[in-house]
Each structure stands twice: as structure tokens, then as C-alpha cells.
């Protein structure tokens, strides 16, 4: 890949990740439907995971897996494995939180028969 093109990619990748997070945050804050709020939260998580993996990508790097006849110097070429391990953890935790949030949505629907937060507001926000 060209270096000039790569520079554009710099802005494109981070910009997209942050934009996706912002869109998710917008959805979570503005939308009235409980399910929309959960969707917004899961979009934030997606953008964040992308940002973290992109952060420690190394140009021309390879996946951090040693194949049969690896060279001694090949660790220098490998991308950083730590953020990948962290994102792995974050994805699984995010799934657990989403599942709990959705079960709460089902509970609220059973009580109020609506998903609109304007009509659920028994407690003050």
C-alpha cells in the first residue's frame, strides 16, 4: 500500500470508529424506545472494539501466531497481541451485559406493555 493512501486510512479508520461510537451514543441518549437504547449501547461497544484493535495495528504486521517454521526475527513483525486479548474479554463481557439489559426490557414490557420510556417513567429520571 502507498504511504499517501495509508495516511488517509489513518483518519478514515479512527474517524469511522469514533463516528460509529457517536452514532450509538446519540441513539442511546435520544431514542425513546428501550430496545433502541440497547441497540445504541451495543453499537457503542462495536465502535470501541474496532478502535482498540485498530490502535495497535502495525503497518505490515502479521497475526501474532507462530507457524511451523517461524523465523527468529519474526516477533518484530507481529502486531500487538495484548489489545486483541483485551478486546476478546471486552466482547464477551459486552454480550453478558446486553443479555441482562434485554431481559430487563422483557420484564419492563411485561409490566407496562410498552417500550416507550415516556410512558414507563414511574421513577423520575
Amino acid at each position, binding site marked *: 500500500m502507498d504511504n499517501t493512501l495509508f495516511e488517509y486510512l489513518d483518519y478514515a479508520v479512527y474517524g469511522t470508529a469514533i463516528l460509529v*461510537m457517536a452514532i450509538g*451514543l446519540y441513539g*442511546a441518549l435520544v431514542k425513546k424506545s*428501550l430496545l433502541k*437504547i440497547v441497540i445504541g*449501547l451495543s453499537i*457503542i*461497544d462495536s465502535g*470501541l472494539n474496532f*478502535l*482498540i484493535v485498530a*490502535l*495497535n495495528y502495525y503497518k505490515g504486521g502479521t497475526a501474532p501466531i507462530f507457524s511451523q517454521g517461524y523465523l527468529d526475527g519474526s516477533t518484530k513483525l507481529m502486531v500487538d497481541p*495484548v*489489545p486483541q486479548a*483485551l478486546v476478546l*474479554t*471486552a466482547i464477551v*463481557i459486552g454480550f*453478558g*451485559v446486553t443479555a*441482562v*439489559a434485554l431481559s*430487563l*426490557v422483557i*420484564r*419492563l414490557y411485561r*409490566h407496562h406493555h410498552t417500550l416507550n420510556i415516556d410512558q*414507563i417513567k*414511574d*421513577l423520575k*429520571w
Partner: protein
Amino acid sequence: MVGTPVLFVAIPLMAAFLIPLLGMIWKELVRIVPGLVLIYLLILAVNLLNYVMVHGPIVEVIAGWAPPIGINLVFSTFSGFLVTLMVFLGLLIWLYSYRFKRNVDYEPAKKYFLLLMMLITGSVGIVLTGDIFNMFVFIEITGISGYALTAFYTGRNSAEASFKYIFLGSLASAFLLLAIMIIYSQLGTLNMADIASKIHLMKPGYKIASMIFFITALGIEAEIFPLNGWAPDAYSEAPGPVGAAFAGIVVKASVYAIIRYTYTIFDLTGTYDLLIILGMITLIIAEVLAIRQEKLKRMLAYSSIGQMGLVFVAFGFGTEEGVFAALFLMFNHAIIKSLLFFSGSYLVYNSKEKYIRETNGMAKYLPLTSFLFALGAFSIVGLPPFAGFWSKLAVLTAAADSNMILIMTLVLMVSVVELVYYMRVVNRVYFFKKDENMETTRPTYNGMLAMLVLGAIIIVIGFYPDAVTGILHKASAELMDKSHYIKEVLTLNK
């Protein structure tokens, strides 16, 4: 030494995985086993605290890799004190709620004790760990247990309160991850001591960015003002003992996390002032809102937020006296607020909406519970000769030493506000005529025992504060000595 700090996490996790199996053998075991685990942890915590007071901090390595590479746990006087406090409170909460779940079905009751145990384990993990990502994992463990416990009663609006909590909690975890990654991308390490020793290499811009994200994320859990929307609802909708667990255990762990970041990890100037400003705003707004509340548990929740504000103010002085005062406040608040939640939930046990006016004249029917509530109320306001007096005095002394007269006057004024709204409740309990329709429920024996233990502690500390001040002075000296912490962790030859 009888054990190592990792047992604080390993034993409860082992028990948590075992409980579903044990429940198949004998149903009562799901209630008993968490209590046994907590008793064991309390013995372990006291023993280790004694050891640490003499021999200095224990740094435990996990998976055999020395700190910058692997994860480590630090059991020092500071963290050990908090751990002991949390486990002790957890044991009392278990004792208090042991029997009152009789009217709940077996399945949810089984889950209640499991989740309560994991809530305590998560908080203990936050305090013990020496690794920022590991702290994130423990925060999530605490969070998920907290969401489930808030929504425990199906009859109330608890699901809505829990949804608010989960909403803010997810945002908090996103911000926290962002902050962690900014630090990692610069320093290539996740260990707290290692970060603290290298933080001066980072550009100030990045430091400020990650600091802001950290404070926002942890402020949600620690109830700092604009971010504490979840707290009053969660406290008032959750079962009574869970409210006590939030006030006494979860919030303490989050405050610890913020303090660890501001005192040990970041070396930015002006963070102390930030803490004072945030704490002051939180304190004033929460106390003003508390006076307007009509429901008992919401009032207690706002009072709890206000106390946390005061803790932040005390930490913000940045002096050893300030840290001492803050720790003393945290200790007192944990004990007293638990007592208030325990006794308060029996005062409004049978009412549906939990209004303060429904506590009218309860003193005649529940004399001991009302007395304990009054004791807690007097103590948290800071009247002598109860425990709360000494911590308020310590805050005022620390403020005077730092020449912050304005803050002294504000704290005194806020105390008057506190006095007003607590006395309002005590007045109703003792001197109003009881509503005939209200039924009363006597506390169970184990619930009473838990309350009496807390009441006894308040009186003992009130007359003999030296019982804890020795540990607190040592802990605050240790928190101030940042280089010692770094050295202790990093020069560990495994």
C-alpha cells in the same frame, strides 16, 4: 501468614461455581455456603491485616509472572483495611437477609445469595488488584451482580431502576476501556505501579484525556454529581440489604479506584482541586435534594451521595490529615448507612410506597429498631459522642490545616441541613401518632443481631476512636507514599 490475597477471589468463585451443584443436594446449603465463605474471608482478612501492619505490604503474583508482565494483587494496610471492612459488612448483610427470603421461592433465593457473594467478591477484587484491566473486569462482575440484585423484586418498579443503572454502567465501562487503551497505547503496560513509574513520559494531552475518561467512568459508580442518576432509584427499589451493600461496599470500591488513579497513577497538578470541586458540588446538591425527598430510602440514598461528596472533598485536600479524615468518613459511613438501611427497611416494611410519613409513631411498636435508627441518624449527622462526630471533626481539622475556611463553613452548613432532614424522620418516629392502617413487622432475630452489632460498633468508636485511628493513620501514610508502592510492586523477585 495463614493464606494469600488471591484466596479472596479464588474461594468465592469456587464456591459460586459449586453452589448450583450443592443446591441439588440440600437446598439449605445455598444460603449457608455464602455465609461460611464470608466468615472464612473475614478470618483471612483480619489475619492478613495483622500481618501487614507489622511486616509491610504483601504483593501477590498470579500465574508466576512478575508484575509488569503478569497480574498482581496488593494487600497493603490501605487496601487491606477496606477489604476487611467490606467482608465484615458483607457478612452482616448476609446475616441480616438470611431468613427474610423465606417468603421468596427457592430459585430466586438461591440466586440472591450467589449474587450477593459475587457483589462482595467483585468489590474486594477492585480494591486488591494492581492492574487496570483486571480492575475493569472486577467492575463488570460487581456491575452485573448489582443490576440483577436491583431488579430482584418482581413486584416493584425495580426493573426500571435496574435499566437506568445498566444504561449508565455500560457507558461507564465503555469510557473506562477507552481510558485504559489510551494509557496502554502510550506506555505499553497495564500494571498500575509500572504506569505510575513511567507516567512522566506521557504527553500531558493524553494524560488529561485518559484522566477525564477515568473520572467519568468511575464517577458513575462512585455517585459523583452529574452521573449519579441511577443511585436514588436503585437504592429505593432494591431490597433493603442490597441498598446497604451498595452504600457500604460497591461505592467504597469505586471511591478507592478513583483515589488510586488520582493519588498513585497520575501525576497531574490540579487533580486535587478537581476532586474538591466535584465533591463540593455533589455534597451541596445531594443534601439539598435529600431535604425534599418524601420517601425514606430515596432520602437515605441522597444522604449517601452527599457523604461521598464529603469524602471526595477530604481526599481533595491532598494532605495526610485529609486522607485520614476521608478514610475515617468512609469507615463510619459504611457502618452507619448500613444500620440506617437495615433499620429503615423495617420501619417501612409493610408500606408500598415507603413514604417517610408512614413511619409515624413506629417507636411504640418497634422500640429497638427505632432506637437503632435514631442512633444511626444522630451519628451520621455528627453529634457527639457517636462515631460520626470524630470523622466530621477530622474533616474540619484537615480543612483548617489546609487553610480552607470556606470549605469548613460549607461543611458545617451542610451538617445543619443533614440534621434537619434526619431529625424530621426521628421526630415522626417518636412523637407522631401512628396510622392505624399501618401494620408492623418485627425484625427477625438474625436481622436484629446484625443491627445490634453495628449499633455497638458506633457506640464503641464514639467513646474510643483509637480503636481504628491507628490503622487509618498507617493506611493514609501509605497512600501518600507513592514511590514506596511502586518499589514494593516492581522490585519483586518472585
